[in-house]
Every structure is written in C-alpha cells, then in structure tokens.
C-alpha cells in the first residue's frame, strides 16, 4: 500500500472513530474545548466571502449602530417588563452573536459578563444540537440555559437564546439574560451559601430547546415552574426574554431587508476582528513589566478562613497574561468557587468598565488576553464543586485585575479612562425569601448590591454607592415599590455609614447603611453572602488605603415596630447608635461575619449591614483640607476622626481650616513616619515568616512560591498544579466537637462515665 493510501485510510479511521464516539457518548456534559476557550472563533469561509464583498466601513458602522440600538431596545423591554427584581434594576443584558457564536454587541446598559459568557452555550448548541435529529435548530426555536458549567456566572442567571435565519440559513444569534434570583436551590434567592454539592444549587439547565415556532413549550415550562419557588416569575421572565429576543430578530431582519444578510455577517466579523487588533495595539503601548498583587478572601461564607486570590500579570509586547497561580485550591464542598469562564468574564468586565469602555461591548475585547490557571483552584473549579456563590471568587479576580492593570496603565501616554483604585467588590445586601404579606412564596434579593462604592481616581474622589463592579449602569431600585411585594421594611437605607471611608489623597466612594426588619410574615427570612468582615476585600492604590471591614450586626429578642409605636424616642437610626447605646430593653445585640446562612426572622428584629467603600488613592497627607471639611459637612467622617486621620487642624464650630497649623501637623507626622519606618531588609527580618500563621487556616501560596499551596494548615502543603479535593467540615460538627471536648473535661472532673463511649 502506498503512502497516499495509508493517509486516506487514516482519515477514514479518524472519521469512523469520531462518529463512533459521537454515537456512543452517553452524556453531553460541559465540553472543555468550548468551555476553556474565550477567544473569538476562526474566520469562516462565509465570513471571508462577506468581508470581501462588503468593505465600506461607513456601511459596517451604520449596521453596527442599528444592532446596538436593537440591543438597547431589547434591554429596555426586559427592564420594563421583567418580573425579577434584577430585571428592574438593570441586572440584565441583551446581545447579538455571530453565526459561530461570538458575542459581538451587547447592550450598553446591564451586565456585560452575562452576555460575554453566553457564547459558550451557543457554541454547545451549534456543536451538538444542529445536527442532532431529536433536537435540531430551526427558525422560531428558543433555547434556555442557566448551568454555569456550560457557561454562566452562576445558576441564578437564566438566558434565552434565539437563532436568527434568513431564507433557511443561520446568520446569527440573539440572546437575553436576566439575574432571575430564585432557581430552586437549597436556599431561596438563587445564590445558596449552604450548597455543598452542585446538586444543592437548584435548576441545572444545560442548553435545551424550550421554544418552538416562537412559543414556549408548556410541558417543559411546567417542569421548570415545578422546580422553583416562584413559578409565576419563571413563566413571566421566560416570556419577557423571548419577546426581547424576537424584537432583536425583527431589527436584524430589517437589516437583512435593507443591507442584506451578508452585510450583517461582514459587520459582525469585521467588528470582532478590528476590536482584537485594536486591543493588541493598545496593549503594545503599555510598558513591558510584571505586576504582582493579591487580595484576602476571609470567609467561605460558612466559616472564616484566610484564602488567597493571587495574580501575576505579565505584559510583554502585545501579550497580556493573567496568571492566577498561587491562588487557593477550590473548596470542594463550599459554594465560593468559580468555573473558569466566570473568572475570565469578570476580568473582561474590568476592562470594559474601567479601562476601555469605548470599545464595542463584545467578547473580542478579551480575546487576545491570555490566562493561566490550575484546574481545581478557586478560579477554575472542577465539575463537581459547587459555585453558586462564585461571586466571591470572581469579584476578587476582578479586583486583582483592576489593581494590577492600574499599575501598568499609569505610565502609558494613551489612556481611555482615569487610572483608579479598586472598586468595592462585595454584594453587601440582603438576600431574602419565604411567604410574603400576600401569601406568595418568593425568593430573591435587594437591589442594594448595586450600590458599591467607586474607587478613587487619579484626580478626584471616588463616587458613593455608584454601581456594581459587574455593571456600570444599574439601579438600586425604589424601596417603596419593593415593600409592596416583600414583608419587611428597610428602616434605615441610603444613609452613608460614617467613618468607613478608604482614606487617601483622594478617598474612595462610600457605601450606605441598610437596616432591615420583617413585619408582616411569620415565614420570612434573610441571608447575607459577603466576605470582608475580618479583612478588607480590596487594595488601595499608590499609597491609598482599602476600606475597613464590614460586619453583620443584629438585634434580636425585641420588636422595634412596637418600640416605634409605643416609645418612639428609643429608636435610633445608625448602626453605632443602636449597637453602642443598646437602646432596646432586654434585646440581644450581636455581630458576626457576613456569611449568614438563610434563617427565618421574627417581626421587629434588626439585621444591619453597610455597603463598603471603594479604595483610596495616594498619600492621605496630600488630601486637600477643604475636601476633608466637605466630608465632615456631609457626615461622611466625624470631626475627631478626620483630624486624627488626615492631620487637619480646624475650628470645630466654624470648620475653618488653620492652614499653618495643618502644615505643621503634617510635617511633624512626616517626621514621625521616618522614625517609625524601618529599612526594608530590617522589616523583612522582623515581620516576615517562612510559613503562614499557625492559628488561622490559610489557603494558597506563601511568599511567592506559586508551585505549592497550603490547604488549611501548615502540615498540608500541596502541589499547586494538582491540589486535589479540599473538603471542609460542617461548622456545626466543628462546634459539636468543641462542645464534646468541653463535656469530656467536665465529666472527668465530676467522675461521670460517658454512656455512649462504645466504638
């Protein structure tokens, strides 16, 4: 047999093997080929032909603008008609994807990461369902999806995906995504902290067809409704998303009519390729350097632990490499892990929000960026690990990306935004659920998660409670409207929490206090899911500080509604007044970390939290005294603390600054710095340890050795490239163990023999 014949046989064998494997695949799980690739797809022959034919950039731009308008229209429809609280505040998006599944244009409002991850399920549909005789992809079909393992942030977000055809040929895709909230998980509200396996996280929708001939299939709808706590919400928002996609389809078909489908194909491809090219050009203008940073995750939301998010950012030529080596291993039975696409999507969000907001909001902006992660780490968790609280890890990945890029960006002459300190990065809000005052079962959360404080910028303070890190244009909702649906009041809301700012030459934008109390239901409860009660979750920039810690404060054993009715002068309206003065008789005042698992609340008990501040920028001794006084006037900082912190001397009655005394005080403090500061080598010798702290469980690499990671104790050092499973003990079992030990001591002292000491 000659060489050519051998090659032919090999090709035939390969085809046969491929067909055999396809025919005998018993489960179409998440496909690594799709899930681990964030780049735009290779140019197809069709795209090549269309780009050859349509070269007029004015026409391309005109089509892109029309598609952008269509996305805005779809966004508006979902925001106005959506039933989920998230829809009303803009935690939604609509987008248009190429025939190969690449996101090209997302709506300007909303959460880009939603759309940026939907290319994964679309590519799954293309790969598996188009030629599958039991499924198929036809005009009028709609596919639903939520499972993060097939491409999503977390399961609480649901997408509707619509293929768009012209004369029987698939041209592109339209999709709409909403943070729905409820998804039938072990806890209400869609983001269960208590999930210990992926099966505790509720609906696990791999991409499947739920719409035919533009109509939702009632049997499948009923199954989905039967799987969640809010069946009406499930139905209503599926319809809303479908109609938004249909509107996008209508606008796209108008482009087909006026410009032709090939012009649209050329527009989508040209847009993505030109963005890739432009991103490479912009990266090339940055200095070649390596930046290292990390943040502290202080909780799994079930127990406190010191968890490292580690980033080495390498910029060389036109390459930008995000290396997350040294980050913590995954927590195999805790929900704070993320699937790899979630982390990448959040890094992309950092670029689209704060570095290159002028670029089209598609996935091409991130396409040239490279990532290095370890499967089995907290930013790249395994299939079995839960990730319903992936916000914890993806928000930290956002922060380290933002912090590191700021250090590269500063010297670059060409900028498209201000250099800024990290944004606040936690969803300090109440997740709630139960039976409301109308007898309906609900599960969702307060829009206050969108009120994160902005980071300070290189020439001005950060803005207060401005926006979440995952969306530049989102709302915090109307409290009075919320109270029509839920049986609790926010007794204090939108009031800045004094003395919690991140100081600097420019301070971070601050967060506000929220005090919630159940009123009209015996079956209503709350949970909170944030880190940062022990250690700040962000960094400051160039000498600026991070924000402080944010706890959960509670008052139980009282009914403040009775107090307000019968003894109203006892009521207080800030956390320090309530916790320090303890004005309610016989009440119990406690604090805890912000990982509160869902629990039923009683009428009139108080749950009190605050949004956090964005990071500060620059040396606080350079802060303009006039800005310090303005913060005092706005009750952002107390006069005593302002004087102590910023070294500003002023008249306490008139707030007039004594410039000379201020300069003297600051000069004296600079001299103090010279005395208290020690040379680097001396400092290292005195304060740096070879191993992590002995008395706090630590997870991640230590002192820059990213080849090994600690896993909860100094006796458990693992290969960073293959860390293995990492199981935590149930905190209740930990507590039982502690109590049993105490009991044993007491028994021994009393001479009592345990009755169940048989083995």
């Amino acid at each position, binding site marked *: 047999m000659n060489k050519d014949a051998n090659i032919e046989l090999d090709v035939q064998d390969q085809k046969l093997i491929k067909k055999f494997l396809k025919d005998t695949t018993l489960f179409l799980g998440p496909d690594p080929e799709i899930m681990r690739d964030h780049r735009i797809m290779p140019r197809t022959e069709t795209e090549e032909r269309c780009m050859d034919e349509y070269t007029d950039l004015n026409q391309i731009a005109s089509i892109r603008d029309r598609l952008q308008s269509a996305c805005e229209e779809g966004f508006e429809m979902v925001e106005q008609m959506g039933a989920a609280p998230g829809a009303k505040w803009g935690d939604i998006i609509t987008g248009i994807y190429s025939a190969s599944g690449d996101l090209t244009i997302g709506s300007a409002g909303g959460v880009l990461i939603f759309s940026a991850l939907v290319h994964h399920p679309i590519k799954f549909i293309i790969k598996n369902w188009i030629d599958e005789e039991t499924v198929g992809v036809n005009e009028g079909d709609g596919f639903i999806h939520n499972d993060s393992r097939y491409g999503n942030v977390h399961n609480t977000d649901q997408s509707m995906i619509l293929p768009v055809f012209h004369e029987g040929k698939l041209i592109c895709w339209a999709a709409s995504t909403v943070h729905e909230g409820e998804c039938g998980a072990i806890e209400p509200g869609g983001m269960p902290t208590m999930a210990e396996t992926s099966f505790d996280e509720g609906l696990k929708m791999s991409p499947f067809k739920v719409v035919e001939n533009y109509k939702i299939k009632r049997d499948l709808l009923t199954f989905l409704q039967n799987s969640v706590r809010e069946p009406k919400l499930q139905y209503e928002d599926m319809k809303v998303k479908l109609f938004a996609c249909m509107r996008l389809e209508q606008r796209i078909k108008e482009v087909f009519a006026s410009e032709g489908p090939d012009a649209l194909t050329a527009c989508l491809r040209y847009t993505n390729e030109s963005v890739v090219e432009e991103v490479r050009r912009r990266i090339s203008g940055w*200095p070649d350097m390596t930046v290292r940073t990390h943040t502290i995750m202080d909780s799994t939301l079930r127990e406190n632990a010191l968890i490292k998010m580690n980033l080495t950012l390498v910029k*060389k030529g036109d390459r930008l490499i995000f290396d997350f080596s040294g980050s913590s291993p995954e927590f195999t039975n805790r929900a704070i892990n993320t699937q790899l696409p979630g982390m990448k999507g959040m890094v992309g969000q950092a670029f689209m929000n704060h570095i290159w907001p002028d670029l089209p909001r598609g996935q091409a902006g991130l396409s040239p960026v490279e990532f290095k992660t370890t499967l089995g780490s907290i930013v790249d968790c395994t299939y079995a690990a839960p990730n319903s609280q992936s916000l914890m890890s993806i928000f930290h990945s956002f922060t380290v990306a933002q912090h590191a890029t700021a250090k590269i960006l500063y010297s670059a002459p060409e900028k498209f935004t201000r250099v800024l300190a990290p944004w606040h990065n936690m969803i300090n809000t109440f997740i709630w659920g139960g039976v409301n005052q109308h007898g309906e079962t609900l599960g969702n959360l307060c829009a206050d998660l969108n009120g994160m404080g902005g980071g300070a910028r290189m020439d001005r303070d950060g803005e207060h409670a401005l926006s979440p890190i995952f969306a530049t244009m989102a709302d915090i909702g109307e409290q009075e409207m919320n109270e029509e649906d839920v049986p609790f009041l926010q007794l204090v809301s939108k009031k800045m*929490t004094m003395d919690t700012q991140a100081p600097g030459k420019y301070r971070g934008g601050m967060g506000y206090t929220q005090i919630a109390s159940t009123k009209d239901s015996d079956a209503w409860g709350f949970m909170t899911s944030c880190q940062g009660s022990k250690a700040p979750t962000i960094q400051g920039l*160039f000498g600026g500080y991070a924000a402080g810690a944010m706890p959960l404060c509670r008052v139980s054993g009282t009914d403040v509604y009775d107090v307000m009715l019968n003894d109203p002068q006892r009521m207080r309206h800030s956390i320090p007044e309530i916790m320090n003065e303890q004005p309610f008789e016989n009440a119990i005042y406690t604090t*805890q970390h912000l990982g509160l698992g869902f629990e039923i609340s009683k009428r009139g008990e108080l749950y009190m939290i605050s949004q956090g501040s964005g990071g500060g920028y620059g040396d606080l001794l350079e802060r303009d005294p006039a800005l310090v006084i303005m913060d005092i006037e706005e009750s952002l900082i107390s006069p005593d603390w302002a004087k102590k912190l910023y070294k500003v001397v002023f008249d306490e009655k008139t707030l007039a600054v004594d410039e000379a005394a201020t300069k003297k005080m600051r000069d004296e403090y*600079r001299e103090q710095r010279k005395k208290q500061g020690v040379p680097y080598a001396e400092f290292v010798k005195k304060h740096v340890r070879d191993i992590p*702290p002995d008395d706090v469980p630590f997870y991640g690499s230590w002192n820059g050795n990213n080849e090994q990671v600690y896993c909860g104790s100094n006796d458990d050092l693992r290969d960073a490239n293959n860390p293995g499973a990492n199981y935590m003990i149930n905190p209740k079992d930990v507590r039982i163990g502690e109590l049993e030990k105490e009991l044993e001591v007491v028994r021994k002292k009393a001479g009592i023999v345990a009755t169940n000491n048989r083995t």
Partner: protein
Amino acid sequence: MKVLMTEYLRIDLDSENWECRVCDHTVGPARGNYKEGLLVYKRDPEDIHPSVIDPEKYNFTFCPDKDWVSIYEFYCPSCATQVEVEYTFPGHMPLYDMEVDVDALKEQWSTREELTEPTTGPNVLVDRTHGHNH
C-alpha cells in the same frame, strides 16, 4: 529621560534608577524592587479603620482583625511620602509588585516625548439637561 511610573515614582532611563517624584530622592535600581529602597512600617488597622462599634462588646467592629490582615506602609526615606500601602496576610513577604523590563521601556520611550505630568484620559462631560425624570 524620565518615565512617570506611579503617583510618586518615576524611572530615570539614563541612570536606570527609581526616583521619588516628590523630592527627587534616588530610591534604588530600576531593574530591582523599589520597595527595597523605602522605609516600611506595619500599621495597626485600628489607626486607619476605626472600630465604629464598641470592641469591648463585639467581635466584629468594622475594624479589620489584625490576626487576619497586616497593613504595610512604604515611605520615601527622604520626604516620607507614603508611596505604597499593601494589605497582606500576617507574616507574608511584601510583594515585588512592579518588575519593569527596563530595556523594553527604553526602547518604547525612544520614540516618545517625555511627560512631566501623567495623561489622564478623556474628560467625560455630563449633560445636565438629561437626567432622572421620574
């Protein structure tokens, strides 16, 4: 030529040194870790982030727990400007945060004009005639 690298640091491409932008002090070799030329101080978190609620009564007070986080401050030894602050794990080595390829920097700036102030990016003008109308 000098390149502005941070709010308080620049690199002199000719002498290949990090310099303080406030007082012109030479911090150290540009091919090395600038932090090694600074003074370092381990700051008590309570000095920066006050206990908003009474630490005698409560475990969580809005002040970070110093067993869980350390704050390293880095000062210019000449003018005491606070060049950098690092929130880190107790006992952790300060990060070598900016490792610059000096040769590439020289090549890159060989075709650029020197900047004495950093660029800031475009100003975004707010149109106050449009806003919330509900």
